């Protein structure tokens, strides 16, 4: 069974078609990259899956349950979560609190008004494990805004992991990173991909080819290629879109 199925998806912004007739299926445990030139519709595609934008037409299924036009929090509760291209952490909360609040949403503590939030040890313990996973140990009590850029990126991933989703959408996980930070991130994504299904938008072609088991290429909202990395590398249409295709 496909974990995510997209049928005839279209999204128009006024006269501009950002997504055109996209028809895709993603299998459990695959690591699929979505690539394409700027403005190809990659981020829009993620936003529609996550329910942050509604499609003009088409349907989306998560494990055969239709999620088209569902509110974001419900989609998240089903087991999809994303990381953002533009950092989306909570700057005035500590690292620990950033992770803890993400775990808390799955619990029944949310409408507890009178206990201190730090009271719940079980949450703290789970948060500690996530912090270890994204190599932020030692930084638990730092405010998120005081982290270095690479640390913030890892926290971004950590917040998403803390939700324990089955499908993770990674929007440019290495954007703006220095070379050795990218190496660490590749390792991190690799270890996550052993347990989860990942969909990744990424501009760094080295990252894409070293990680993906499958690559989908979008150009002007359309899928122009879909296959294993070797096929994509040799695809003429892809080369054209990247090298000379953008008028």
């Amino acid at each position, binding site marked *: 069974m496909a974990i995510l199925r997209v049928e005839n998806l279209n999204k128009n912004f006024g006269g501009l078609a950002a997504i055109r007739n996209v028809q895709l299926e993603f299998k459990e445990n695959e690591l699929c990259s979505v690539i394409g030139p700027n403005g190809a519709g990659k981020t829009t595609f993620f936003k529609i899956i*996550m329910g*942050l934008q509604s499609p003009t037409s088409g349907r989306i299924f998560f494990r055969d349950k239709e999620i088209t036009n569902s*509110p*974001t*929090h419900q989609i*998240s*509760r089903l087991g999809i*979560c*994303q990381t*953002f291209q533009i950092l*989306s*952490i*909570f*700057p*005035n*909360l*500590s690292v620990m*609190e950033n992770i803890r*609040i*993400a775990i*808390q*949403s*799955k619990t029944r*503590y*949310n*409408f*507890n*008004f*009178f*206990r*201190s*939030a730090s009271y*719940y040890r079980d949450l703290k313990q789970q948060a500690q494990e996530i912090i270890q996973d994204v190599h932020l140990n030692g930084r638990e*009590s*730092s405010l998120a805004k005081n982290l270095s850029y690479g640390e913030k990126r890892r926290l971004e991933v950590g*917040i*998403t992991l803390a*939700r324990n989703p089955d499908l993770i959408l990674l929007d440019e996980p290495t954007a703006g990173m220095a070379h050795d930070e990218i190496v660490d991130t590749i390792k991190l994504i690799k270890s996550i991909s052993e347990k989860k299904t990942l969909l990744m938008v990424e501009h760094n072609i080295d990252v894409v080819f070293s990680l993906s088991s499958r690559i989908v290429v979008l150009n002007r909202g359309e899928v122009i290629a879909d296959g294993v990395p070797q096929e994509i590398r040799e695809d003429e249409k892809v080369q054209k879109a990247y090298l000379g295709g953008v008028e």
Partner: protein
Amino acid sequence: MIGKWFLNRFSESHVFLFSLAFFLILPLIVSNHFIITEILAYAIFGISFNLMLGNVGLLSFGHALYFGSGAYTMALLLIHLKVNMFLGILAGMGVAGVFASVVGFLSIRQYGVYFSMLTLSFAEMAYFIALRLRDITGGENGLSIVRPPLQIPGLFSVSLESPLKLYYFVFFFFVLVLMIMRRLVDSPFGRVLQIIRENETRARTLGYNVERFKLTAFIISGLFSGLAGTLYCLIVKFVHCGDLQWLKSGDVVIMTLIGGTGSLYGPIIGAIINTFLSDLISLLWQRWLLILGVIFVTFVLFMREGVWGEIKKAITQKM
């Protein structure tokens, strides 16, 4: 890092205890007990209002509706049914809570100016209805009440005609509200409000039903504003439809912005400054609102985080 965290918590509880001590001995310092009792009621109003502005980041410009409906409920129940004071307080909170649920439900999906304008228009609607229903509300002339004694039938009965007793009666509720709000802000629920303010989209992708949290906060805010209204009605022994008007809503906005939205204590300082100043300047000059306006503009231009924010900045810079 941990030391700093500890210091933060440490100092917060100290501020809490200090403010309790301050208001506990205030009647010994200030002889005009009426004014300081009024300050307490406005402080409760400000703290409740700031749950929305400071914690959720939504500016309600119609909080007079909850304050006023609380006050009116108290007055009407006292006049027509001569109920026990505590029942009046509970009923006032309840009515304010119902209004807050309805208005909140209809406006909580809006942002920024749209939210402010919607809440304002609902409150103004209530104001004009109250103005028209002169037989019930007394219109602009309002209703006068007789302050009932504080009593539990068969157990005790204390008259609140002495200003000092009235002060400590309101002080009790002030402490209660401060304690509740303090817990609330630090609770798991409070944390969710904080992340909604910091990054709403992210909160949604983490599975939080943002509207539900905002609405809950709005209702709680309305409930306690209603409490402030009932107490205010008992203090001034009077309620009129001006208590529902936008000027009242504006008062609490000004108070909170002057004091600072960043913490529980900002609105308290704002209530002190606003009430004292209004009282002082209005004696000196008829056009005293003009001066208050200048002060307000000065704060918005130069002290964006209010008095409390400036104090905090000064302290942290020293460390």
